[in-house]
Structures are given as C-alpha cells and as structure tokens.
C-alpha cells in the first residue's frame, strides 16, 4: 500500500514536471529554439537539426500561396519541387481579410513566416517600423542580376527611403468587368476608357432599359474604398496634386474629397449600385455571383482575376474597361502583388534563396501561362485580354493618399463612405474628421 502511494506521488511529480517543462518550452512551428530578441542576427537554422544527418533540410514557411489564382497552387508546387533537396517548404494559403494582422502577429511574436505575400505599394507601415528585410544588397549583387529580372515600374513600388523592402509578383489594379450582353440590350457601346459622367449616364440607361443593376462592388475593406480612392487619384492627377496627396499635404477639406463623396452618394441614392438598399454590405462573392447570373452589368474587381471571371461568366461575353475617371485624367489604384521577408526572419539567406526561386522565369511562366501579368520581364504574355489589361496598367498610380498612414486607410475603409451615405453625416462633418485624421497622422 505504501509503495503504491509512493509510486503514485512520484508519478504525479513526474507528470507535473513534464507539463511544466512543456508549458515553459520553446515556441511552436519549425523553430527549434526560441529567438531571444528581434535584433539577434539570424544565425540559427529555422529547423531543428537532425541529430545524425550532416546537412539537414531547412524548414521554410512560405506565406504566399494565392489559391484565388489558378496558378497559385502550381507555382508553390513547382517551388517545392525545385528546392526539395535543400528546403522543406510549407506553402500557406493567404488569408486576405486578416493578412496584415497575421503578419504583424508573426513579427511581434518573433515567429514570423520566412516570406509573406503583401502589396509592395502598401508596405509603408512595415517600412516605418523597420519590420521588412532590406533586399537592396541582394537585388544589386552580381551587377544587379536579380534586379534586372523585374519590371522596373513595379519594382519601384516596393522602394521606401531608398531601400527595396518588397519585390513584385505581378501587376494588379482595379478594373471594371462589363457584361457585353446587358450593354447591347441597353444600346450602349462597351467602353474602353470613360469619364464618371459617362459611367453614370450608362448606368441610368441600363437601369431604365434592362432589369439589371448597373454596378456592383464588394463590401470588403480592400475593395469598397476603390470608389473613393480612384476618384481621389483621378481628380488629384487632373489638378496636379498627386504628389501632395501622397505626402498628406492636401487638407481633408479640399474640394477633391467633397466631389468624390457626392459622386458616390449619387451612385447609391439613384440605386445604380447592386442591390440598392444593402449595397454597402454586399460581399465580394455575392457581387460576383450577381454578375455571373446576369443581374449586374458592371463588376468592380482586380485585373489579376480576369482569367477566372471571364471563364466563370459562361452565359455572356465579358470585356475589361478602365475605371471611370472623375477628373479630366484617369488614374487608378493598384500596383502589384508582391512578397517580402520580415526583418526578424530566422535565416535571411535561405529566405532570399526561396524568394528568388519563386520569382524566377520558370515558375513565373506558370503564372503567365494561366493568364496573369507576371512581373518578371523575361516572361512573355500572349493572351489578348491580358495584353489589354497591361495597356490599362499605364494609368496605375501606386502612391496615394490612402497609403499616407494606417489611420487614413482605416478611415477610408470604415467611415468615409458609410458615414455620409448611410449614417447621414454631412459632407462637411465627414471631411472635418478626415482632416483631423490627416493632421494626427502628420503630427505623429
């Protein structure tokens, strides 16, 4: 009895000790040991080295698998295949809705992925906090061999304070997909480039002559603000204020913002925006479904989805039109999909090697063959729709007021349109708040 009790006590002590050690143990994932500080150089391998194998494969977390692209899975598979002797590459699907949170959590907890997908033109928040690895030495090594593989315009999007902190995967910007059948029924020629007034006139005709709603756009915070952002870019370009807008020098009470706000309100009040009441809460998927069902004449979407949208619109032909310009000149938001390496990555050289491989010609050819405009200049595009999209990319302006600060972006995502259109706040009230946010950002 006594020995049984003793065994029981010893067993409990052992269990408690195991649990305590487990709770106090190193971080999860593939890190073999905890990294003491973010500033420590990435000397340790990112994987637990095998005790007996001399050159163990390193584990790489590649947070850049874009499943929405038909090329996404294929590119990651090819990457894993090409580097199978050196790395165990885990391709992680990009969660667009929570991307920034996921990245910042990973960096703050000192267990970041080795490579992250993020838009180079939106990297300011990471640049300001020095959270992205400076890729300049790698790009300029060997007389700029790697640098020369990129479209120079797209590569510049990831340059902040003279340093390249992100590299482009392919161009991506906002466009309008047009249901040719509805336009034909309404007797309107399918546009290529048009003004906001022409867009509203076409919307009015579509509403009068067909059963379809003229326009649809998803509620998501990275999509719905396009209405405002493109308007501001277009008007800013027309008035020669693009640089000042990007630098946050234009007050929030400027007539540019007022015109954008009133144009958007008119679009909503006239019920040109699917499905009328509830337009601000329609999801991206619902907007797309309505477009495929022929309920909507024009769908706002990214250019990179052209192949998929054209293929899924089985009952009608789809054309790609430019975003209607609110000003005399057109300018649209966008830039590129891209990738970066966090500054506190475990093994910088390994991460760069994987990044270089992913963006090489053979893998990017997969991307181009699936109908996407790859950023690698050595990859040629033959699809006429993609060529058309590449023509439209001439109007892309990556530097915009929206990117001036995270609170500016949040204001456009959450308050700019709904406060005026739904809540009924006056234009002056909304713009005063925008000005306050601008000044707070400027003074920070």
């Amino acid at each position, binding site marked *: 009895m006594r020995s049984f009790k003793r065994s029981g006590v010893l067993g409990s002590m052992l269990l408690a000790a195991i649990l305590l050690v487990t709770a106090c143990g190193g971080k999860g994932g593939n890190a073999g040991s905890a990294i003491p500080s*973010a500033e420590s150089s990435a000397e340790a391998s990112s994987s637990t080295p095998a005790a007996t194998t001399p050159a163990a494969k390193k584990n790489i977390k590649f947070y850049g698998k874009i499943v929405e692209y038909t090329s996404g899975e294929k590119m990651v598979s090819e990457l894993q295949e090409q580097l199978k002797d050196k790395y165990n590459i885990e391709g992680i699907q990009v969660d667009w809705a929570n991307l920034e949170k996921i990245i910042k959590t990973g960096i*703050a907890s000192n267990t970041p992925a080795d490579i992250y997908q993020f838009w180079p033109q939106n990297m300011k928040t990471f640049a300001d906090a020095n959270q992205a690895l400076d890729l300049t030495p790698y790009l300029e090594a060997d007389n700029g061999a790697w640098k020369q593989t990129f479209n120079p315009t797209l590569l510049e999007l990831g340059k902040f304070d003279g340093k390249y902190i992100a590299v482009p995967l392919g161009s991506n910007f906002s466009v309008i997909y047009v249901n040719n059948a509805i336009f034909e029924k309404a007797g309107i020629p399918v546009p290529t480039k048009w003004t906001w007034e022409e867009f509203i006139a076409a919307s009015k005709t579509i509403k009068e002559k067909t059963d379809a709603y003229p326009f649809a756009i998803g509620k998501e915070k990275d999509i719905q603000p396009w209405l405002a952002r493109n308007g501001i870019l277009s008007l800013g370009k027309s008035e020669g204020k693009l640089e000042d807008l990007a630098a946050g020098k234009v007050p929030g009470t400027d007539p540019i913002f007022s015109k954008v706000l009133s144009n958007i309100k008119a679009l909503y009040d006239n019920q040109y925006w699917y499905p009328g*009441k509830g337009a601000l809460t329609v999801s991206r998927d619902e907007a797309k479904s309505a477009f495929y069902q022929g309920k909507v004449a024009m769908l706002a979407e990214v250019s990179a989805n052209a192949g998929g949208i054209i293929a899924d619109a089985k009952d009608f032909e789809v054309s790609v039109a430019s975003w209607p310009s609110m000003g005399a000149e057109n300018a649209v938001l966008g830039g590129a999909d891209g990738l970066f390496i966090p500054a506190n990555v475990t093994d910088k050289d390994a991460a760069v090697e994987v990044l270089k491989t992913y963006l090489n010609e053979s893998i990017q050819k997969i991307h181009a063959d699936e109908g996407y405009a790859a950023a690698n200049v050595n990859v040629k595009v033959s699809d006429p729709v993609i060529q058309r999209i590449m023509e439209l990319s001439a109007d892309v302006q990556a530097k915009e007021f929206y990117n001036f600060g995270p609170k500016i972006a949040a204001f456009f995502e959450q308050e700019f349109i709904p406060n005026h259109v739904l809540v009924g706040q006056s234009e002056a009230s909304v713009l005063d708040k925008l000005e306050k946010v601008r000044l707070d950002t400027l003074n920070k």
Partner: protein
Amino acid sequence: MTALSSQRKKMIGTGILFMLPALAFIAFAIFIPTIWNVVLSFQEWDGFLHREWVGFHNYKEALLEENVRKSLFNSIYLAVAMTFAALVIGTGLAGFIYRLGRREGAIYRLILFMPVMLPVAIIGLLFTFMYNPEMGLINQLLRTIGLGSWAQAWLENPDTVLLSIIIVGIWRLTGLTMMLVFAAMQNIPVSLFESSKLEGASYARQFFSIVLPLIKPIVQLSAIFTLVLAFKSYDLVFVMTEGGPGILSRTIPLQMIDTAFTYSEFGYSAAMGFLLTIAVMLIILITSRILRGTSYEY
C-alpha cells in the same frame, strides 16, 4: 499528534502536486497574459522594438476617442440586451417546458438547446444569408405575405444593424438559460406545487410566487454566465458585419485588433481591453446585486 500532522502535510503536498499542472496552465493561459496586458496598457509599443512607459496616456486617449467610446458602448449594449432578453425568454421557456410530458419536454429542450451547440461562426454566416436584402429568407417571407414594405437591408440600416445582431445573440443564448433554469426547477419539491394548488393557485401564480424566488440564485448564475458569453461577441459581430457598415456595429474587440495590428499601437489596444474588463466586472457586480436571492433548503 505529530504523526497526524505529518499525515496531513503529506495529504496537502499530494493535493498541491495534483493541482500543479492545472495551476501551470491557468497561470500561462490567464494570469500571466492578464498581468502582461495590464503592464502593456501603460506602455507605448509598436509590436517590434520601440517600447516606452507612458503612464495613463493610453487610458486618457481611449476615453477621449469617439470611435473607442462608441465601440465600448456597442459592446455593452449588445451584451446587456442579449443577456436580459435571453434570460427572460429562457426562464419563460423553462416554465412552459416544465409543464410538458417527459418525452415532449426532452424534444423541446433539445431543439431549444441546439443553437448553443452550434459554432458561432456558423450561426453568424447562417443569419447573414437570412438577412440578405435581396435573397434572404426574412425579406422573401415578408414579400410573400404582402409585407414587402417591411423588407430591409437589416445589416446595413443604422437603425436595425445592432438589433439584428442582438436577435441572433438571443437565439443563440436562450437555450442555455432555459436549460439552467429548467435544471433548477427540477430540484423544487413537488409538494410545494401540490400544496399551493390546493390553495387555489394557478400555474402562473405558482411560477411567480414559488418557482422564481426559489431558483433566483440559479437565475443569477445563469445571468452572469450568459453575460460573460455575450461579451465575447467578437466572432459573431466579425462574421456578420465586421463592425460595419462603417463603425455602426463595431465592438471593442474589433477596435482592439485594428489598433494593435493595423496601427501597431499595442499598448493602446491593451488599455482598451482593460477598460472593457472593468466595464464587464462592473456590470456583473450590478447584475449580481439585482438578482441577489436567498438560497433555500428543501
């Protein structure tokens, strides 16, 4: 005497040993993060390198910023409304089910408790489809019965968005309060009902004069439990509206996430979290006081 105290010491020691794993887990999962959060709330930290002590600056900012106050109000409003309605309806349903036969009662209890078992994200998605202005079940039903003018963009209209979320919360939580109250009613001696019936009391009279006073401690417990669940409404609000449209249905957890992970203001976010904690504790205290009842032995 010495042998007894030595025995007692061994027992205590064994007890502590068995508690150690659970204590370790609670310490790492709850105590340490809570203390860390409080400490962080007095600092400015960008989540990476820059960190400095700022005293009560974060709390002052949180109380002065309109969006934070609105989010805090929404959090409290949603939680209190959901809890109150779920409690009243749940207690009423328990009263009705108590009168049913064994089999029928079991079926009703299962049906009413099922929403509690569903994942919140699924519930949120389900009701998002139901509230859809064009294809949603609610608007379609209203149009079918000739009340098309009542059809709304439920999750877009500023007047209905919070109410729509509250209704979902009530639907989700009512089964829980119903079950707790029903279980409490099972412990009431049947003789009390019989004797009151002989006195001429109807069931309604019995319910209000006998049942409710006797089960008040359980109702209090149920209210606190439901309140805590209702305050954890992040996933429901996120799935249904993401705090929108605009910031109309924004709650403190959503505001905290944006503050920490979009604006890189982790200290400020921690301060908001602590303010919510204080608000929750105050409301629980008030609820306990209001629903304070005497425990009876029978």
